[in-house]
């Protein structure tokens, strides 16, 4: 059963100027949650901005759900002004979430705020894995490294601009890691350009990769057909599937990226 209503903000952390975390009470009616699923947030009670804002689960347990939000535009800006004790309207859980299971060795590849749902996978998922490694990429200063450090065997961090980290994108370390040939599942979330690259790299090596994708959404429930991406199937040689319903997780082998 989905939940649509207000929840109270129990905790708030500011990770960076433009990144914050909320812990909200988990509504009792929500029976199951899966890492990679998301909730749709009513950014403001005034009705503006008009559309809900999708935010991934970055941690959950029986009592609480955590969200990690990057302030980009009006919606997330308004949200950032809410304080502990305030209520916020949420709708979810939505989307398919990550496929979990038993693996030999797992590699996590996250970029920017895309690390949020990956944190959720590591902290609240039920992966059965011998070893998990992780590559995180940031444009500027990294955040949430502690959380990942705790959950993985090896953590590699790259940044385009911040000092003290390997310079560049996740793709360099990714190729190096994959060349070892030990990984049997990759999980990735980040900007579209990164996901496209990750998919390509994994597909070439025939390593299964779960991509958590992002597209502008209107309804979030599968009704408006506004959030489609292309997958390889169907009568036309491709199919438009809904990120909010059939996704946001797709396997690298099934997605067709825009040129």
């Amino acid at each position, binding site marked *: *059963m*989905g939940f*649509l209503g207000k929840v109270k903000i129990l905790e708030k952390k500011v990770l960076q100027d433009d990144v914050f975390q909320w812990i909200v009470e988990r509504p009792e009616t929500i029976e199951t949650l899966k890492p990679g699923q998301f909730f749709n947030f*009513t950014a403001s009670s005034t*009705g*503006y*901005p*008009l*559309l*809900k804002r999708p935010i991934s689960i970055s941690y959950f347990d029986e009592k609480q759900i955590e969200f990690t939000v990057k302030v980009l535009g009006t919606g997330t800006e308004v949200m950032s002004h809410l304080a502990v004790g305030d209520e916020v309207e949420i*709708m979810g859980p939505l989307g398919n979430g990550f496929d979990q299971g038993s693996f030999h060795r797992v590699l996590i590849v996250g970029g920017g705020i895309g690390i949020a749902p990956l944190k959720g996978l590591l902290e609240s998922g039920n992966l059965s894995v011998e070893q998990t490694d992780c590559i995180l990429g940031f444009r500027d200063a990294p955040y949430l490294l502690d959380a990942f450090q705790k959950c993985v065997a090896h953590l590699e961090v790259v940044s385009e601009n911040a000092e003290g980290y390997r310079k560049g994108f996740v793709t360099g370390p990714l190729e190096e890691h994959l060349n070892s040939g030990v990984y049997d599942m990759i999980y990735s979330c980040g900007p579209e350009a990164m996901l496209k690259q990750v998919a390509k790299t994994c597909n070439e090596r025939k390593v299964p990769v779960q991509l958590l994708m992002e*597209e*502008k*959404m*209107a*309804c*979030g*429930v*599968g*009704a*408006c*057909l*506004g*959030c*489609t991406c*292309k997958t390889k199937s*169907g*009568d*036309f040689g*491709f*199919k*438009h599937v809904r990120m909010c*319903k059939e996704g946001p997780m797709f396997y690298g082998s099934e997605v067709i990226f*825009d040129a």
Partner: protein
Amino acid sequence: MPKQDFSTSTQPDMCVDLNGLTLKNPITVASGTYGFGREYAEWIDLNILSAISVKGLTLEPREGNEGRRIVETPMGMLNSVGLQNPGVHYFIENEIPFLRSYDLKIIANINGNTIEEYCQMAELLSDADVDSIELNISCPNVKNGGLAFGTNPAVVQDVVKRVRKASKKHLIVKLSPNVTDIKEIARIVEAEGADCISLINTLSGMGIDIYKRKPFLKRGNGGLSGPAVKPIAVRMVYDVHSAVKIPILGMGGISTGEDAVEFMLAGASAIAIGTANFANPLAPKKVLEGLTQYLKQYHYDAAKKLTGDLRI
């Protein structure tokens, strides 16, 4: 509104009649915003709705437009879905039975590339278990250089005349707002035998991604909907109401009971909720409650008495 309690007043008669299509209340949902009802069934009791206009149907299945399909704009949105739908045959076989498990009327929204396609769909649906056909003449007319059917009076006349002949079902014609004179089009639609007019469809708009320096939507243009367009929609409903006698199903930015009242006062007999469903899946419930409260407060014993009831 003053916060008074009207729960003890007698319940007004919410039933309205769209010239043969009887609705248990004036609240319907707009085509393309509600799929075939399935997705929202988890979030709201579909029995609240008096009717659903289903996702725009085409003769053959369509995958719709590529690339980004949605752009948010100030209190509105642009869409360029491109009529992704499983086709009219699939709809008849698989979606009608599902919808029939609810107490609501089914309006089949049809879209053709040619007049022949419109007629074929209307014929197919004549024998199907739908309550009404909504002729969407806002789609680009492939035979006519891509300009919408609905903007050329002569073409409007032709398509309505022939679809009217092709089917005995209750026929709604949905008007495009992208015209100089909506009354002229409405009069033609009435003269050619439509039972009801719905309006407005989306306004033609564009958004440009200034960082990528191209339109957000692959086709450039998209359809603007949501609260931003409400004043335009109200004006058009008012104009059409003054021009024709057949009932109007009004839409365009409705998200509250007050909005519904506004459209009905302007001349709508019933209203449809579109974009507001995205912002609030409980919008139909909220609108129905708000409308009912208004009727009680202003002592209307029947919703239908609100239609066009302006003090001017």
